[in-house]
């Protein structure tokens, strides 16, 4: 038995039996893992509100030989999404981060850059600021997973997009020029391509002072959602609530 104390983000919980819960944790040092929190529904003293999705915690858990689930003993809150007001959109953004992390990360594979990305977007996700952090997170996740196509030139002919739109299609890879687009393709405007470029050069703190209404870079967000869903080979449930 090895006892651990690890910084982690709570991704999801599933009730088991009367009061136990299985908890999916994204730990900084050990990557994603699942733990059994015994009588979590009753033990406010050990867990309190710490098992709400996207709570940043220090988790105390014990790894047992030949067992898939760790034993989660307690969680101390470092920061909670409940410290700020929650409305439907903010709840949807939090659910989106948790769902994407849960679905994309393999178990026991530490990903410090993903962990840092999640912490920084969480910090900027407020009821009056949803669209920038959601779009930023989605695009960066695609990049960190190695799924980001070239945003400067056509995947098929190599022609630079310049001041023209790029085109993407739900079922296929990459961004293409107008000549190589399909009738069902959707456009990614030159403005949104430029925003994507800025996302990859600028920390989110450098972008928050700008106005991010729901329609700004909405095409980029749609592209990011589609890319995630295509690589995961499943629909993301939380994106329904984020279609502005």
């Amino acid at each position, binding site marked *: 038995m090895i006892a651990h104390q690890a910084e982690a983000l709570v991704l999801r919980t599933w009730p088991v039996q009367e009061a136990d819960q299985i908890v999916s944790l994204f730990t900084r040092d050990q990557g994603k893992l699942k733990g059994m929190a015994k009588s979590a529904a009753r033990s*406010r003293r050990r867990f309190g*509100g710490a098992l*709400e999705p996207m709570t940043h915690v220090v988790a105390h858990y014990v790894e047992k030989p030949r067992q898939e689930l760790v034993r989660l003993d307690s969680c101390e809150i470092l920061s909670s999404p*409940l410290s700020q*007001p929650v409305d439907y959109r903010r709840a*949807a953004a939090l659910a989106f981060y948790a769902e994407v992390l849960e679905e994309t990360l393999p178990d026991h594979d530490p990903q410090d850059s993903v962990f840092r990305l999640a912490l920084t977007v969480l910090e900027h996700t407020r009821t009056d600021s949803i669209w920038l952090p959601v779009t930023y997170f989605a695009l960066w996740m695609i990049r960190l997973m190695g799924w980001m196509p070239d945003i400067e030139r056509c995947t098929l002919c190599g022609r630079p997009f310049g001041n023209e739109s790029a085109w993407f299609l739900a079922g296929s890879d990459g961004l293409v020029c107008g000549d190589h687009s399909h009738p069902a393709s959707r456009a990614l405007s030159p403005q949104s391509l430029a925003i994507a470029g800025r996302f990859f050069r600028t920390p989110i703190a450098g972008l928050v002072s700008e106005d991010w209404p729901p329609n700004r870079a909405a095409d980029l967000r749609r592209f990011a959602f589609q890319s995630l869903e295509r690589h995961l080979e499943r629909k993301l449930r939380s994106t*329904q609530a984020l279609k502005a």
Partner: protein
Amino acid sequence: MARLIEELRKLPGIGTKSAQRLAFHILRSNPEDAEALASAVREVKARLQLCSICNNITDVDPCLYCASPTRNQRLVCVVEEPTNIATVEKTRGYNGVYHVLHGTLSPLHGVGPEHLRTSTLLDRVTRGDIDEVILATSPTVEGEATAHYLADMLRSGGARISRIATGVPAGSDIEYADEVTMTRALEGRREM
């Protein structure tokens, strides 16, 4: 037998093993007991319905709270589930009526504002039938999002909108209160 196990497995908290155990228990029980169980299941579906005013589960419509002449019909406590009513009733200090949402907003489960049962509550508030709405959803992310949504929806109706207090549980030790709980306890403090 496989069909019975499959049906039992759909119940909350029942896994395959528990379903098998229950199915074998039913198989071994005498015919009267098995029939009593089956008829109780049938009757609960045939007799019970949702109250047309508050959505509580009831065998008479309106339910006993909505029909009560001694309860304050202008004070409404909004809860997530019918079982939450019993929790509020246990206090013996509440004499208003209820509204049951049958769930919360849940982006991860595809539950949006259009899925919440809110129309009769909105009607009552806009008609001016209500003085105060107490939002008693859980202090979780989904419960808070739901309370926030309801407050926005009902605000123009003229009723007072309040949220239940959250903070340090009675009988517990402040030492074990986490940062969020303690912050809320301080925010929700009252004059003594």
